[in-house]
């Protein structure tokens, strides 16, 4: 589903963020990516989203070589990927329903489908009863669940979550991780970037560890090493 071949990323200013990364993620896998701050985790996510281009090596997503992806092809790529960022917030002036609907509208989804999909994904994250509330009327954990719902709305094949629990306490964090597991059970490939040792150790799934832009460990049913 996701494959990196000898990928390096050197930012302008000679900042090497990733060095010779090789990894291969199968469809339906749940992979955690861990590592200390500044080791290139977010860079890896941005490469998957084609927000950044690799300096060396090849990247392919779902069998599509996106190394030299054209500008106008990027939307097609992103329609296959759901994204949850720590700072990728909800629109404060829109209700939860409208927030999710917005993502579908701008993706070109039919009106009738929107009315079907939005309640569906909000039910998955357990918020179907609060659809008409505004973000400030729900808790931080609930907000993050809406973000997950939004990332699911266009039925992506891959879900990328960069520190989705960053601002949350452990109970809310656990909720989010449970949610990601549920989504993974539906068959979606999940890539989770996290600092949270507890989370990783309880998952018992594949863990890739980065250090200074290099993959130092890649284990099925891995543990948080650092």
């Amino acid at each position, binding site marked *: 589903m996701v494959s990196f071949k000898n990928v390096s990323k050197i930012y302008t200013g000679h900042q090497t963020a990733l060095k010779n990364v090789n990894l291969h993620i199968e469809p339906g896998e749940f992979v955690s990516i861990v590592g200390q701050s500044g080791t290139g985790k977010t860079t890896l996510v941005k490469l998957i989203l084609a927000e950044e281009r690799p300096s060396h090596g090849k990247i392919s997503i779902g069998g599509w070589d996106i190394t030299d992806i054209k500008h106008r092809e990027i*939307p097609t790529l992103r329609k296959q990927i759901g994204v949850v960022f720590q700072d990728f917030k909800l629109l404060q002036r829109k209700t939860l329903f409208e927030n999710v609907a917005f993502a579908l509208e701008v993706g070109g989804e039919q009106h009738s489908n929107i009315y079907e999909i939005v309640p569906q994904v909000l039910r998955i994250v357990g918020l179907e009863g609060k659809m008409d509330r505004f973000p400030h009327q729900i808790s931080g954990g609930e907000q993050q669940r809406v973000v997950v719902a939004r990332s699911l709305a266009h039925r992506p094949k891959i879900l990328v979550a960069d520190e989705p629990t960053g601002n949350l306490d452990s109970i809310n964090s656990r909720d989010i991780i449970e949610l990601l597991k549920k989504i993974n059970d539906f068959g979606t490939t999940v890539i989770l970037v996290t600092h949270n040792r507890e989370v990783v150790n309880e998952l018992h799934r594949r863990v890739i560890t980065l250090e200074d832009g290099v993959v130092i460990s890649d284990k099925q049913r891995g543990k948080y090493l650092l």
Partner: protein
Amino acid sequence: MIFLSISRIAKFSLQNFFRNIWLSLVTITIIVLTLFSVTSLVFVNAVMNQAIKLVESKVDVSVYFKPTVIEEQIVAVQSNLVELPYVKEVRHVTKSQALAGLREQYKDSPLILESLKELGNNPLGDTLIVNTYETQDYQKVIDILKATPEYAVLIDSQSFDDNSYIIDKLEQISKQVTGIGWGVTVFFALISLLVIVNTIRIAIYTHRDEIGIMKLVGASNTFVRGPFIGEAILYAILGSIITFGLTYIVAGFSDPYIVGLLGKTDFTLLNYLNANVLYIFGGELIGITLISVIATSLALRRYMRI
């Protein structure tokens, strides 16, 4: 699908418009000022041209023949003059017509009428009134009449109402006004461009969260940029409509003054406007839409990373 995108882009454009309503109003005001200065320029030009035409139509050369000259000789001169390529028309006023004209002119002064009667015989000669296409050609007509001896003996006198000075002056003023008008227009157009760039910049800033989401959920570039272009086109259209209304009001108010300026003519600004409405407003709409789209493209290129 295309219809869906267009209707959603239109919806987001409207949202942009209303979310920064004051900014939108300022932008439209500047657009109206720009367009209105263009319209004023067009109006001033029309009035000036009308004035020049009016003065030109009053210019002519009158050739007064001696009373003894007979009809055939005059007709010969007339047909020779008409053949000149720069002569528009030559009117023949006969002695009796001239006398009738004189009587009509002085019908309220019995003294003059009395003395005319006392003269018995018609003392007046025939007259040819020559009009040329261009004012500068009057001198040529006069020169020909003077230089041809056969003509010179027949002619009593000739007079030329020399209005060419006024015409020159009018044309000069017209040119200056046009120049100033263009200067003002270009100035406002530049201000419009800057204001629109800034408005769109702020719109982009206001919508940075939406833009971020759009990009990450795979909205096409057209979709991300569309609402801003739509917003700018909306400004252009609303500005044009307001200018349109304003122009009609101003034309209506000005027309009485035009009559005062030009005297009784068929020319009114309203008529002129009606006759040229498509050119004036079509041109303005196209022009300001282009400016808006250019401004938005500049703002998007500068302030929005795709």
